[in-house]
């Protein structure tokens, strides 16, 4: 790693939570009432406030020119970290040293004014993001060209379609030239075509030797863009290292979150010769996963409990539905050509997918079993699981989001 451009030491950020409060802001009345109350009562109970550390004792270094992805679940402190680095909020403890100009892109179109024209907003937004008037003028044509809004430059942006609005906003931001760029989830906007363009631009910026900090839930984007990654969990650093290693660490972590309890489901059919009692995802070594990843192997595990001991001719089938309830595929030991004449003493059924072809998203499944030709247990919409995006083709590229719901391995030939 080159000389650190950002050094974070023991960083912490504390928020005080007010449990009782319903409004977003404090009313003076409440403060006075609270003061009056505490004057008359000797107790120090403070009416339900508690502390919450969004970041705690966080230390890491980022070298000049590094492209760093920041991953973690919702509430892991990613956005808070970016806000502290961008000097928007003050840390509670610790220290951050930054050598260079840092620009943050926490939201596209910050400060856009609906009444102003596209041209005026380019200048305004540029100034807000820290560009000088001269810089903006120099890049003006490039920005307009990138956004593709030449014809509407003098139209107020309130009359823009949302797509145009976002394109213009991203275009301004993409032409910033700081030494350090901090980006939060901005790629989750616009149509597929534009997202590709954004990604390309981001890559171009990254290759230009600038330092980039990129927060996203899109693992494919992180894999594609970032050489190293940081995994945050509950405001603390779990690992920092090469992107693939950190992502797999992230996916393996907190597997319990993906467990589905099936034992107590009343809405089941069948004679109960066996019962599905639970479901979880694991990797090939049997370690639980929080989510599958496109292109990686995954094992669907069903815990079972058997009633009686004469389990003959076990048949199991699993149907997978997409988020719209559309059946995508059907897995069964019948089509895979495996038969289980006896299954006495078994406690788990595992289905291994060597290379998960599903796109990132949420999926639900239905599970079905037969024993001795009779339906034993049948749970419609038994549960769900999540697939994170991944590099299915090993090329760092994927078809656009609107181009289908799963991947198929393929190769081309020219003859």
């Amino acid at each position, binding site marked *: 790693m080159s000389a650190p451009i950002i050094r974070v030491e023991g960083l912490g950020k504390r*928020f005080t939570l007010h449990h009782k409060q319903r409004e977003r*802001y*404090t*009313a*003076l*009345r409440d*403060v006075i009432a609270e003061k009056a109350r505490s004057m008359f009562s000797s107790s120090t109970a403070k009416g339900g406030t508690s502390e919450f550390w969004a970041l705690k004792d966080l230390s890491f270094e980022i070298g000049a020119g590094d492209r760093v992805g920041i991953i973690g679940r919702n509430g892991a402190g990613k956005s808070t970290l970016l*806000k*502290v*680095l*961008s*000097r*928007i*909020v*003050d*840390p*509670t*403890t*610790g*220290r*951050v*040293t*930054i*050598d*260079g*100009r*840092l620009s*943050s892109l*926490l*939201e596209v179109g*910050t*400060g856009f*004014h609906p*009444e*102003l024209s596209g041209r*005026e907003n380019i*200048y*305004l937004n540029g*100034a*807000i*993001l*820290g560009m*000088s*008037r001269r810089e903006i003028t120099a890049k003006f044509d490039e920005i307009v060209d990138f956004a593709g809004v030449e014809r509407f430059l003098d139209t*107020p942006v309130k009359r823009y379609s949302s797509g145009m609005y976002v394109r213009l906003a991203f275009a301004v931001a993409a032409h910033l030239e700081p030494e350090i760029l901090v980006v939060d989830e901005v790629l989750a906007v616009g149509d597929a075509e534009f997202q590709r363009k954004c990604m390309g631009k981001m890559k171009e910026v990254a290759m230009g030797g600038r330092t980039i900090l990129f927060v996203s839930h899109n693992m494919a984007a992180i894999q594609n863009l970032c050489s190293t990654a940081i995994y945050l969990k509950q405001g603390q650093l779990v690992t920092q290292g090469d992107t693939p290693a950190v992502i797999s660490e992230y996916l393996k972590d907190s597997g319990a979150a993906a467990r589905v309890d099936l034992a107590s489901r009343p809405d089941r059919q069948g004679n109960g010769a066996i019962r599905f009692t639970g479901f979880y995802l694991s990797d090939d070594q049997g370690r639980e996963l929080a989510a599958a990843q496109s292109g990686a192997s995954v094992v669907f595990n069903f815990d079972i409990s058997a009633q009686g001991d004469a389990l003959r001719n076990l048949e199991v089938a699993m149907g997978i539905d997409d988020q719209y309830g559309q059946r995508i595929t059907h897995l069964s030991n019948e089509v895979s050509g495996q038969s289980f004449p006896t299954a006495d003493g078994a406690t788990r059924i595992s289905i291994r997918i060597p290379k998960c072809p599903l796109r990132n998203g949420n999926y639900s499944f239905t599970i079905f079993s037969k024993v001795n030709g009779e339906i034993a247990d049948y749970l419609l919409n038994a549960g769900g699981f999540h697939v994170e995006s991944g590099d299915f083709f090993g090329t760092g590229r994927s078809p656009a989001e609107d181009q289908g719901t799963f991947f198929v391995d393929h190769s081309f030939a020219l003859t």
Partner: protein
Amino acid sequence: MVMQRVVIEPGSGSQHYWRDLWQYRGLLLFLAWRDVMVRYKQTAIGILWAVLRPVLTIGAMWFIGWLFGSTVPEGTPRILMVCAATLPWQFFATSFSETANSLISNSNLLTKVYFPRLILPLSTVLVSAIDFAVAFLIMVVLMVIHAYLPGPEVFLLPVFILLTLVSSLGIGLLIASLNVKYRDFRYVVPFIVQFGLYVTPVAFTSQDVFTNPAVPSLVKYLYACNPMVAVIDGFRYCLFGASQSIHWDGFAISCGISVLLLVVGIIHFRRTERGFADII
């Protein structure tokens, strides 16, 4: 480009605050420009509103002053006396109320980008100053109509324009920073503006108060605590010269309160500024 080192620590941010403020002056101008551009968009008469509002107020104040027979020095048209007070008063009122709301109405900026937060109130003050400059044309027109030429005292006018800025910025900053946490102050603002008009010598003059034996001295001192008393007495002095004897005790108190408010306002603003993004 010079490598710039930034150190972020709890309660820091102050090391280079004023230098930062200077570096961000471009943003200040852009924000002011935005507000000016936006203010009269989609209105039929546009910038004329900046003239129409004071004109109507001047008319009403002139009528009230005439009705109650406030003192007007010999040879000075009453309408000029009223105008010389209405313009700074409206300057103060818009500047103060816009400043007080400047943080709340730009909360999307506060939570998404860094800049010295003082930029926001300063830019709104600048916008009010532009409105004031436009409205000042009324004064010029009225003087031409009455063929009135002010004496050399008129060159002191910028001092009192500055004093208006000081007093509106001081109390505006204080309320703006309180407003972030306690939205009660949103309701205090229109009240201060409304109430202020009654205790400020717009329809009447300071002589009416200070030279009236029926007014107890305590009330006179309370009256002098209004920062706008010094501003308006000053404006009238600049425009109508020696015919306006300034009541120096009251003038000093009033100026002192303005400066005090500015100091308190800046201190409170700077002290709470780092937490704005957390609680707004």
